[in-house]
């Protein structure tokens, strides 16, 4: 561990000595491509673990899957090596079907297959998640910064009370209260999802975002306060910079570093939130679909949904990692110099 730290700091110095920022940028692009390519083995490993768990469930439909699809390339390979019908060949068949036929398997011969069922649901879940994350950042960060700049005054106290209150509330409570007040009492918005009505997305998004806003606002506030105490802020003021640029340019960018690094975890949290919210507001999304699959024990659908959720999460994590490198030059250099090491660590964690 210590050797690794030593090496990476050496690497930073080397990169610095070159003083070649375009080179760094190129390497960062390469890092992003490598990270994306690494999705493939990571997904395979996750698939294998989940497949194993589900395969050995009593009465698993995975175990009942035939190894022959009836005349494709894999079938001829299987016949030529006279493959036995076991766990491994079934796993190979499962993966092959996903790649070659975009087929996540069917529990009953009559079902239309997972992809045609959920393409539209993915859109709904992604819409909720992205608007939720967007609202979280757009509202949470300015709220936290505002509270930090008004530290100890009435505005700060109000924000603190509200954020503590909101982060203590689970999304299902918020959903019920919002539905009763806004939909039932005030009849401003529809209670359940109506596909044609974009207003139907408002309450689910608000419910998802509220918890996120609370935690992002608290994080932004504390990190802004910490940055404002740093000697370099005083040094920047002493150079005659206008207060606006000290706060909005320098302090803000530094304060965003911990917020962005926490974004990956926050997105996972919000994704869980969408499950509850989709069910409550009857939004036909991935979460409600998956809960339904669980209740009817449709193992193919469960596994398929899990894989899609994992891909969504991995993409979000990659985006937040890239953003992190964008605000933090130290991380950018590390991306440029040590991709292999970082990836291994992240795949493990």
């Amino acid at each position, binding site marked *: 561990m210590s050797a690794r730290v030593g090496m990476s700091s050496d690497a930073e110095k080397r990169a610095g000595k070159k003083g070649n920022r375009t080179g760094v940028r190129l390497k960062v692009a390469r890092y992003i491509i490598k990270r994306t390519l690494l999705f493939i083995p990571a997904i395979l490993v996750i698939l294998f673990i989940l497949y194993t768990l589900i395969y050995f469930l009593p009465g698993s439909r995975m175990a009942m899957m035939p190894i022959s699809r009836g005349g494709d390339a894999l079938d001829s390979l299987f016949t030529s090596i006279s493959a036995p019908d076991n766990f491994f060949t079934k796993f190979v068949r499962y993966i092959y079907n996903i790649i070659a036929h975009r087929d996540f398997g069917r529990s009953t011969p009559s079902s239309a297959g997972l992809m045609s069922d959920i393409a539209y649901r993915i859109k709904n879940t992604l819409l909720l998640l992205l608007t939720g994350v967007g609202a979280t950042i757009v509202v949470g960060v300015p709220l936290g910064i505002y509270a930090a700049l008004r530290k100890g005054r009435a505005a700060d106290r109000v924000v603190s009370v509200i954020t503590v209150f909101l982060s203590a509330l689970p999304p299902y409570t918020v959903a019920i209260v919002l539905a009763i007040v806004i939909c039932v009492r005030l009849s401003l918005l529809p209670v359940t999802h109506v596909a044609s009505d974009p207003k139907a997305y408002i309450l689910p998004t608000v419910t998802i975002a509220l918890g996120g806003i609370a935690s992002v606002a608290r994080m932004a506030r504390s990190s802004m306060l910490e940055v404002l105490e740093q000697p370099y802020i005083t040094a920047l003021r002493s150079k*005659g910079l206008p207060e606006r640029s000290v706060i909005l340019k320098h302090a803000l960018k*530094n304060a965003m570093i911990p917020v962005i690094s926490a974004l990956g975890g926050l997105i996972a949290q919000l994704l869980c939130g969408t499950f509850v919210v989709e069910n409550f507001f009857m939004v036909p999304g991935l979460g409600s679909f998956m809960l339904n699959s669980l209740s009817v024990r449709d193992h193919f659908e469960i596994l398929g949904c899990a894989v899609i959720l994992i891909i969504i999460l991995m993409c979000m994590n990659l985006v937040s990692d890239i953003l992190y490198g964008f605000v933090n030059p130290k991380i950018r250099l590390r991306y440029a110099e040590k991709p292999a090491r970082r990836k291994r660590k992240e795949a493990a964690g």
Partner: protein
Amino acid sequence: MDKDSMSDILLDVRELDVSFDTHTGKLHAVNKISYAVREGEVMGLVGESGSGKTVSSYSILGLLKPPAVINGGRVLYKGRDILGLSNKEAAAIRGREISMIFQNPMSCFDPVFTIGSQMTETVLANDKTASKAEAAARSIDMLREVSIRNPGQLMRRYSYELSGGMLQRVMIAMALLCKPKLLIADEPTTALDVTIQAAIIQILKKLQKQHNMAMLYITHNFGIVAEICDRVSVMCGGYIVEQGSTDDIFYSSAHPYTQLLMKMVPRMDTPLSEPLPYIEGLPSDPTALGEGCVFCTRCPYSRDICREKKPPEVSLAPGHTASCWLRADNASAESGRPSV
């Protein structure tokens, strides 16, 4: 004070009084101190840790934040009171008229912007007519003046890629970018090792002469004082206890505190086996300053009157003053003069 040369006084601090509101009560950091810096002069502000040197310098530029409270006094810069200016008014003075370099160069740069962007931004903030290219060119010239060999490349670096000595040079360059009339140097060499210290002081001395700039040099190192200061103010517990030219302070120091401080400077010729000397006792608690002299609890010559009343400021020679009862007695009647 120098009544004879009031005209060329650049900075005139009068009865500046700063305290901190803490849980345990008011902490008096700076107690009605007065000093003046003339144009082109280097004034040293010397004292032990916690004697109020830094706080007094921060208040000149309005950099103090709550819980610090300025209770009174005036800071006249070119005859204009600059204490308690709004952020906007203060920004017009900072960098352009008075600028400052800080104790710990490693933590005084924004880590997420390059050195170059921080330097050009300083130029642009203080000189609205400058273009980006001019600002960059001026930054590079200035970096060359502080003996940086590869300024163009350094501009693209981040602060964490540079050593402390390099950063302190960059900080000096940044402070002098807009040709200030006064530079406040707050222990600029404390965080550096000794060989780098010497180089930094040489650079400061050279640039101070070249630009004919006044300097307020805050330090606890008498070696540096002897090296660059024209005049010295000695601070103890938030009071200025003695003021005078560097020669006055070194050759005829009048206050027991100054004398003891001088004795505490380690000498080359003392054997290594001997422990380093120190002033007995602890600095007086700034939340509970007594009626008497701030140094009376540690002063080897303290008498009853030292504990009861504040000593008056006594003029010993033109420009040389000390606040001590020993000297006051000496001034009023030639009795009880200690042989120190």
